[in-house]
């Protein structure tokens, strides 16, 4: 029932079903409401989409290659190993590169955010800080634009929709760095953990490793994507449970094509065989691709905007509130500390 303060009389009548009989032109029982789907589609095609993916992991885990494999183009530049001095990074950098890609009329602005230097130092304390800061900065930029009086028609979305975390294929368990990072960042961004360079693990080792990882994530209260609490309905839950049973995906990336059984496939050629990237018997790249791109892309963006961003906004607006209240002599007791 609609309840408008300005108007007292409102009524809701039971759902009226207008059937589209799909007959001849003059079909007077068909209103045409479902044409809105087509209208929405048209609008989406015209506007295009934005996607911002961050890749985090030690150098040499194949982050850039994986991105290039996912998007079948050079969207990420491999870190150029230069001179000896430059080889040891002193900082965690955040490098963000955007490309316009198009497929079947659908245009997308893809931004890959690389984090060279993460986990590469001897002392990696707080190496997640610059990353946290970057993510929060994007939320801040969006918030600033949103609260402007004169604001843009479409607020440019630079918020990190998804953070792919590369776990080195040790085969044993998560390292403290992995746990620390994922614990902190899963609170502000969607984390998709993957086992990198999975072609060094046998299937049994892989399963064992995955199980161990899942246990450790659970034990540490780390909620990776797809998060259980954001399942919308039973159908959603069913689909997402299946995914949750499979993460982290064991992936192999490649931008080289090889001839396999008369077909040209992306793969890695070794002396003992060719690993086909898109073959699910070999690795789980295809599942990752389907999750990220073909089925859950919109969902990932939605969770970022309606949950992570909103949480940031609430924290930020409350923090301003207490700052001002404090200035007025109100005792502070609920200052929310930034997880840094």
């Amino acid at each position, binding site marked *: 029932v609609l309840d408008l303060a300005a108007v007292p009389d*409102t009524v809701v009548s039971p759902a009226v079903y207008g059937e589209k009989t799909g007959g001849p032109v003059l079909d007077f029982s068909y209103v045409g409401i479902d044409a809105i789907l087509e209208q929405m589609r048209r609008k989406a095609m015209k506007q295009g989409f934005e996607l911002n993916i961050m890749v985090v992991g030690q150098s040499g885990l194949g982050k850039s290659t994986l991105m290039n494999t996912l998007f079948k183009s050079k969207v990420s530049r491999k870190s150029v190993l230069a001179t000896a001095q430059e080889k040891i990074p002193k900082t965690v950098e955040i490098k963000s590169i955007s490309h316009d890609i198009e497929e079947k009329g659908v245009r997308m602005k893809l931004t890959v955010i690389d984090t060279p230097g993460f986990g590469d130092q001897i002392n990696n304390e707080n190496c997640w800080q610059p990353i946290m800061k970057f993510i929060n900065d994007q939320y801040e930029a969006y918030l600033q634009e949103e*609260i402007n009086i004169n604001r843009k028609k479409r607020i440019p979305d630079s918020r990190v929709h998804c953070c792919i975390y590369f776990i080195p294929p040790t085969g044993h368990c998560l390292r403290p760095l992995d746990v620390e990072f994922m614990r902190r960042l899963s609170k502000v961004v969607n984390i998709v953990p993957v086992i990198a360079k999975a072609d060094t693990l046998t299937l049994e080792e892989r399963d064992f490793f995955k199980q161990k990882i899942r246990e450790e994530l659970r034990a540490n209260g780390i909620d990776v994507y797809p998060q259980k609490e954001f399942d919308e309905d039973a159908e959603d839950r069913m689909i997402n449970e299946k995914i949750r049973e499979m993460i982290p995906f064991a992936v192999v990336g490649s931008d080289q094509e090889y001839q396999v059984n008369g077909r040209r496939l992306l793969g890695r050629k070794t002396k003992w065989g060719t690993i086909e990237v898109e073959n699910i018997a070999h690795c789980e790249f295809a599942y990752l691709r389907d999750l990220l791109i073909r089925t859950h*892309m919109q969902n990932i963006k939605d969770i970022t905007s309606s949950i992570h961003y909103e949480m940031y906004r609430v924290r930020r607006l409350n923090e301003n509130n207490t700052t001002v209240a404090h200035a007025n002599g109100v005792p502070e007791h609920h200052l929310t500390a930034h997880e840094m």
Partner: protein
Amino acid sequence: MASTEIARQAGEGVRGVPLAGHVGFDSMPDQLVNKSVNRGFCFNILCVGETGLGKSTLMDTLFNTKFEGEPTQHNQPGVTLKSYTYELQESNVRLKLTVVNTVGFGDQINKEDSYKSIVEFIDAQFEAYLQEELKIKRTLHSYHDTRIHACLYFIAPTGHSLKSLDLVTMKKLDSKVNIIPIIAKSDAISKSELAKFKIKITSELVSNGVQIYQFPTDDESVAEINSTMNSHLPFAVVGSTEEVKIGNKMVKARQYPWGTVQVENENHCDFVKLREMLIRVNMEDLREQTHTRHYELYRRCKLEEMGFKDTDPDSKPFSLQETYEAKRNEFMGELQKKEEEMRQMFVQRVKEKEAELKEAEKELHEKFDRLKKLHQDEKKKLEEKKKSLDDEVNIFKQKKTAAELLLNQAQQAGGSTTLKRDKERKN
């Protein structure tokens, strides 16, 4: 210790990059549409027009259903807005349709304020959305959007020109809502008169600077049909929920002795065009224009009115909350000042009254004294009079006594003779 150094590579001049194979993000529009289907859609139509122009019937005809509501009387004291929400479903699309009717529009003798309640209603919906958007904990994605997406303005089929009420109302509404003017009950006008009428209306709207909704022509797939339809505005419509048998089909029509007007016959009226434009082609655009143009304008004006300003880029970032707090404190300060002023005034008044009363008391005392004196004087006078009277009485008494004495003496002398006589007698 990892120091924080953030290097940003130029993202501007975003390059295009060809894809070496099928990636799969072409499913994005589908993903987006699916999400919307799960959420359901909202569409809100406002019907403005005089009583009796067939607004309710037209809604019934457009959406193929019988909406609730009795036809209104013509004796409403002012314009009120009645809104009804319905859940419609077609294949997998669920639509929450809200129809708002202006009750009593054009019925009053003095119609100067007729447009006000309409503007207030539209603004109230914007305000509600703005409030939700400004909340700290908000749920925008599940918010029931009540903002008016389309305003169907019903023009009476006089055949001549627009009424001044129409022009004034549309002028007040054109910056707040998408106006689609339609000629109601157009079966009252002949074809030739109709063409002239449409031209007259369009030219009046243009010369008065009324911005009506233009069907968008920037997307090639619908540019052609939209621009054709733009030239057919205002649509001349006829509404009917009654069905009549024509040939071997039942069609919606109005039956007259001289013929039958078929609602969905494009030669008879523009109903099909209206339905096409309003629902099948531009519903989403209407919603978008409402949000990105009309609502933004309202929001901007409202925030500026409340005193917010955009800070310049190099000053500290602010939040609405902060400014709100500052404003609130300012307001409280003013309130306190006012309170103080009132208190002062009160004290002043009390003093004045007190003085007045003292004055009165003094007067009263004086009066009392005066009266007392008067009274004393009177008393004195009376006493004097009494005294003089007493004196007179005394004198009189003395005289009386003297007189009696004389009489007595006289009597004694005579009495003794009498006695002698008596004695003589006896002897």
